[in-house]
């Protein structure tokens, strides 16, 4: 029990950050992290030895994906909660950094699978193999998604995507 506390507790802050950046809403994200922690505690004996981070992030990510699916099934839906003060943008305003607000807003426009890879690798410092384990995809796919995520986010930041949505979609079909 003590080794479980020591292994999980230091990761909670990072799990929260990943969840919030992935789903965009603080309350939803914290609910996901709570579910993740409960699952981690009850399945602790099933983890493999070594770094617990990929295991924890995988639990969290799978919960987030189920959440996205439920949302998609319900159709586009903005919970009243979303109108609250604690979404990403507002937090960034409190930081009084317009530039941060901008990058987070643009990050939220990336497709979820690109956003996940970028966050795991560039923000949470998971190895490429670790990110592959979290997402249940081959490393090659991690690399190509990482590349696309960076390219897309850069286009967003340069403001070149807003006018070019349709052509980009066509290009990805080729």
């Amino acid at each position, binding site marked *: *029990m003590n080794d*479980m*506390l020591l292994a*999980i*507790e230091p990761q*909670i*802050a*990072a799990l*929260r*950050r990943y969840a*919030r*950046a992935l789903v965009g809403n603080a*309350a939803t994200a*914290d609910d996901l*992290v*709570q579910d993740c*922690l*409960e699952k981690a*505690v*009850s399945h602790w004996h099933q983890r493999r030895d070594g770094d617990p981070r990929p295991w924890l992030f995988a639990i969290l990510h799978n919960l987030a994906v189920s959440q996205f699916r439920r949302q998609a099934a319900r159709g586009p839906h903005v919970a009243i909660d979303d109108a*609250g*003060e*604690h979404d990403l943008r507002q*937090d*960034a305003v409190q*930081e009084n*950094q317009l*530039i*941060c*607000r901008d*990058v*987070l807003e643009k*990050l939220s426009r990336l497709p979820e699978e690109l956003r996940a890879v*970028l*966050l795991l*690798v*560039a*923000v949470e410092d998971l*190895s*490429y193999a670790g990110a592959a384990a979290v997402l249940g995809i081959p490393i090659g796919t991690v*690399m190509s998604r*990482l*590349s696309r995520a*960076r390219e897309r*986010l*850069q286009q967003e*930041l340069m403001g070149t995507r807003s006018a070019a949505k349709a052509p980009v979609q066509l290009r990805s079909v080729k």
Partner: protein
Amino acid sequence: MNQRPISEDDLNAHVDGVLEEERRAEVAAYLDGHPDVAARIAAYSAQRELLRSALAPIADEPLPPQLNLRRLIENRRRPRPSWGAAVAALILVFIGGLAGWGVRGAVQPPGAGLAALAQEASYSFGVYAPDRVRPVEIRATDSEQLVQWVSNRLHQPVKVPDLTNSGYRLMGGRLVATSHGPAAMFMYDDDRGQRLVILTRPMQTDQNKPMAPLSGDSVSGFAWADDGLGYGLVGQATPEQLKPIADDARRQMRAI
């Protein structure tokens, strides 16, 4: 030159700083000779730093009580109410409702004074304190929003007392319905996960009342009224433990 060609993967690994020393030098040399690629990679590195600093504050936020791992482990040890028990409780409530309908008119209308408030506080404790999923509507992290909300709905400024001196942390609160209109409920818990609630609402009668103990089957608490607002504090601790907390809460909530 028998060097492997520089791939997009190498460039990304360069941005993430995970290349072996030798390969890193090769990529650096490649970038020196390809200013357009170097510019793109520099932009990706800047983007990486930007993301990290934009998201760093989230990890610095204090953890809300429901993400307290020790507490989650503690809660797991307690048996959860089973579905069977929940269904049985619902059936009882239904039967109770029918019985109540049968004797309608025979019972006295509930008092509007302090006794009614104490009853409402016990009900709120009974309903929300055992709730594992969403005991409160607005969490302590948004306490400003909570205070504003309930003050608006009660048309009175309401203050949330700080009970940390007694070992109880604010979890959050919600608006609850009573037969005397909306009431604000605040919930607290201590390190062992023991919860208490404070319920407050405007009083039509008993606008000022000294503190009186209330007793229930498994809960205890105190009720009082100051300047038109009534308060009920209910918990599972003993009356001796709750009395100083109630005194503290009264002192703080009166000071508006």
